[in-house]
């Protein structure tokens, strides 16, 4: 572009600084570039680094010579091995390549030198020392001094995680990306290991801080730590040694910055952002930063524009990666949540943990592995009881599930919002036709919208109900029509809209108060659901008794109507939910205050419903995983609630989030409720139904095969 030559100072001589220097020098030989590295040339921490095929493609485009040298030094492999409960689970068809970090640095250093970049080793510089430079690269790592010198501007956020890990090498030569999970008397340890040249492998050991202390590793010296880990993994190491390179137990730090550019100072690599080592991407991101920066500088004659362009281009890419890395990090931090999963499911979860691999994409890479998961899933926990092995099996979404005496032909649920109105709660022919059409859709279960247990419990005058004596017969006709239409069973949700009652039909919007013909509202406390909404009455003990009786009567009516499954709606800001959330429950009697008091009324309702509902039929509760609002409930509250509901006779939790107040701050997207379902299922160990942005059968298979939920609501884009 004919831009004027720049004086460039790189503060840091890791992969980001070296690669940026060589690419800048290559684009314009007249740039005057100096790389300052605080250590001598051959000092490096860590062992091998991993790259994907996509990253390698970018290297090839950016600089063919270093790309060739890097790939000449590579080891490549395609398998992931997971050692868990004494079994090895192997998934093949992935593409990995790795190189020794030391070798990578050597290649980049040599290439820099060839292109006229000045390399200053053992040169620790501060920003003042490079004040004459036109462009300063802040590539001095997680604890970047360059960044911290302008901390007020960059606003770095360093999130130091609690898990402990240590970065060893080993002279064991692996042929796979290897995850080891090992129970010890002190607790669970896990290893992330992969080869990086023909003779050695990286071997990262990770555990919780508590286990680390119990094992005495907080006071162990270098040799003692090695001895402990070598003994723990002796059967895997098979005589190979663990190698230390000033290796210490550390905590992973996630780095984020509000800004990456300050005047002529730009952050790259770990100084700007980190991503958990379990997705093996720190060096990849750093070198891709370098490519983007060199390109931006080459394309924009004006340096501030170039730097802004670099940040604009890289930030969204890096943040997406950091999101995936965060999912992966949290998975490894919460491993004890998942160690009850059987090996194949545990392995499938591990492979799909960050959302970058799905059931469908894994099947493309390794069809046999996924077929194995299908067979295991179809056989269920009673594995081995059949007279012979399964040869073919449906995907998880299409396997049957038994809940008490009720068997669903598959795990796909549809939960339509009815277009047809009910008249005083009574469903007409058009409701029967609508539900029948869904029953014929191939799903295993059709769920009704909440059926009001009293007339005041309706959200809109068009809402269906189960409160008048003739309603049971009307629903019986609907259920029969739906059952005749297809293999799906039919479940009813029972609800009381509470403070969200007396609103206009939902085609206009939600929570728009009726202009005329409204009715008095009921809630835990006398607080309107939304600004401008009617103020509900705080329920008196007599009100509560009446509501409990209404739910019980509705459950009996549901039984008479022939419903196969019942869901009590305790979510979404409805009456029961208004008791659960501290944002809406301000009572000072035995139904307010701590969580167990706030759960008391919903539990009384569930207990009454359980008693009135057929013993052989499943009961579920619709539960808010998080209020998604300041001061509201969070997932641990929901886990505790799920346990309490299970103890009261619930077989299933339908997971919701937000809507307890209109101030919730939700995030929508593919499977936006799955994380909550996962945590509730695997901590409370209850059956879980989840929906929300699960568009394809593949989405449902990914969720079910990993054990994140047991049933899923499918929301196809078009029907």
């Amino acid at each position, binding site marked *: 572009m004919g831009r004027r030559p720049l004086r460039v100072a790189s503060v840091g001589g890791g992969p980001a600084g070296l690669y940026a220097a060589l690419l800048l020098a290559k684009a314009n030989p007249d740039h005057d570039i100096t790389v300052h590295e605080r250590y001598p040339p051959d000092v490096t921490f860590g062992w091998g680094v991993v790259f994907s095929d996509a990253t390698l493609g970018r290297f090839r485009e950016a600089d063919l010579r270093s790309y060739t040298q890097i790939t000449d030094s590579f080891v490549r492999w395609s398998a992931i091995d997971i050692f868990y409960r004494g079994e090895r689970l192997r998934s093949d068809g992935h593409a990995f390549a790795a190189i020794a970090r030391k070798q990578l640095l050597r290649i980049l250093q040599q290439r820099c030198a060839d292109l006229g970049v000045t390399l200053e080793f053992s040169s620790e510089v501060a920003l003042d020392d490079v004040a004459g430079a036109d462009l300063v690269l802040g590539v001095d790592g997680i604890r970047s001094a360059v960044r911290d010198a302008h901390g007020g501007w960059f606003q770095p956020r360093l999130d130091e995680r609690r898990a402990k890990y240590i970065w060893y090498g080993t002279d064991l030569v692996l042929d796979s990306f290897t995850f080891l999970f090992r129970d010890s008397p002190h607790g669970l340890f896990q290893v992330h290991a992969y080869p990086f040249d023909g003779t050695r492998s990286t071997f990262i050991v990770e555990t919780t801080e508590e286990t680390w202390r119990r094992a005495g590793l907080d006071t162990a010296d270098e040799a003692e730590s090695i001895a402990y880990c070598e003994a723990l993994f002796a059967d895997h190491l098979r005589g190979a040694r663990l190698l230390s390179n000033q290796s210490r137990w550390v905590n992973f730090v996630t780095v984020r910055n509000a800004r990456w550019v300050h005047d002529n100072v730009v952050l790259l690599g770990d100084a700007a952002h980190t991503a958990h080592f379990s997705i093996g991407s720190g060096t990849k991101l750093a070198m891709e930063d370098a490519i983007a920066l060199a390109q931006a500088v080459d394309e924009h004659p004006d340096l501030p*524009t170039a730097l802004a362009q670099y940040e604009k281009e890289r930030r969204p890419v890096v943040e997406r990666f950091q999101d995936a890395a965060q999912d992966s990090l949290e998975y490894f931090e919460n491993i004890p949540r998942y160690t009850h999963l059987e090996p194949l499911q545990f392995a499938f979860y591990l492979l799909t943990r960050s959302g970058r691999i799905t059931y469908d994409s894994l099947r493309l890479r390794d069809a046999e592995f996924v077929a194995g998961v299908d067979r295991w899933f179809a056989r269920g926990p009673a594995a081995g009881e059949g007279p012979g092995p399964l040869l073919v099996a449906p995907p998880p979404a299409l396997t049957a599930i038994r809940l008490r005496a009720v068997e669903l032909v598959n795990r796909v649920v549809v939960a339509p919002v009815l277009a047809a109105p009910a008249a005083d709660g009574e469903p007409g022919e058009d409701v029967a036709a609508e539900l029948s059409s869904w029953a014929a859709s191939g799903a295993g279960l059709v769920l009704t919208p909440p059926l009001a247990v009293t007339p005041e419990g309706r959200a809109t005058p068009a809402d269906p109900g189960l409160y008048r004596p003739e309603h049971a017969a009307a629903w019986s006709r609907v259920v029969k029509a739906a059952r005749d239409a297809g293999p799906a069973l039919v479940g009813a949700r029972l609800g009381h809209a509470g403070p969200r009652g007396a609103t206009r039909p939902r*085609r206009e*919007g939600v929570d*728009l108060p009726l202009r005329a013909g409204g009715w008095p509202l009921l809630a835990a406390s006398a607080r309107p659901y939304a600004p401008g909404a009617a103020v509900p009455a705080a329920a008196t003990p007599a009100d509560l008794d009446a509501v409990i009786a209404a739910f019980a009567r509705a459950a009996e009516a549901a039984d008479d109507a022939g419903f196969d499954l019942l869901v009590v709606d305790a979510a979404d800001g409805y009456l029961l939910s208004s008791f659960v959330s501290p944002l809406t429950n301000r009572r000072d009697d035995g139904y307010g205050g701590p969580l167990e008091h706030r759960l008391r009324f919903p539990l009384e309702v569930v207990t009454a419903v359980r008693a009135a509902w057929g013993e052989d039929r499943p009961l579920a509760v619709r539960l808010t995983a998080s209020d998604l609002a300041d001061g509201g409930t969070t997932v641990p509250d929901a886990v505790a609630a799920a346990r309490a509901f299970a103890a009261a006779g619930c077989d299933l939790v339908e997971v919701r989030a937000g809507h307890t107040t209109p101030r919730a701050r939700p*995030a*929508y997207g593919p499977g*936006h409720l799955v994380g909550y379902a996962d945590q509730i299922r695997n901590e409370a160990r209850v059956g879980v139904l989840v929906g929300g942005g699960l568009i394809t059968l593949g989405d449902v298979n990914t969720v079910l095969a990993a054990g994140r939920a047991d049933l899923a609501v499918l929301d196809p884009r078009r029907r």
Partner: protein
Amino acid sequence: MQVGIGLPATVPGAPGRLVVDWAHRADAGPFTSVGVLDRLQYDNYEPLTALAAAAAVTERVALVTMVVIGPLRNTAGLAKQAASVHALSGGRLTLGLALGARRDDYDLAGIDYAGRGTRLEEQLTGLRDLWDDEAMGPRAVLRRPDLLVGGATGPALARMARLADGYVHGGGPPRAFARAADEARAAWTDAGRPGAPKLWGQGYFALGGDTARGAAYLLDYYAFTGPFAQRIAEGNLTSPQAVRQFVSGYADAGCDELILFPTVADPTELDRLADVVA
């Protein structure tokens, strides 16, 4: 999917006659709607005023704001203005509302930037109340204008799902629209609304060969986004093939109506686009 065309009301220096004639010609063409954008601190026409003028010279096309920055306006005044354009046009107004992306517009209007989300939320219910109010008019049309809401955040999508009839996307390649459409549908279902949200998309074009002029306009209009303006300028559709691919990409993503905005205020641009989308 239906395709509409933007008025050149946000292209600096476009004469009033040109904007009005543009609407008239659009009504005769293959377009199903004409759209306008909103901005205070810029050389552009006030969107509802431009649509009022368009109403006078059109009979068929829908009149759409993509969007009006709601919180900058007094709700009663906005309700009156929108009801008037709706009545003048025989019920052809679709009112898209959002928060806008420029703080300086709020400063100029003397409106607090903080709390603008809550303000928009109140506005959405307030508009309906005012439109339903017997004492207010004009009431020449039975059905209120459709309400669309824009914005990419979770709370914006939740607001759309709770209180609007559909979603208006802020622009971008088809795959960005597809992602936003999935999120909008998920928010809609999550709120318990029946059916699906109406999904509106938008893009920019310059088909007369003067791509530099189109790019210069976009760089200027989006200067406040920094280097992102460059991306937007690069997304300008400058060939019939680019327009066709864009249109089919949006159609595949489930867009109900796509409005293409001119970046060069020359009437031949309208004719060229008409030829491509006819």
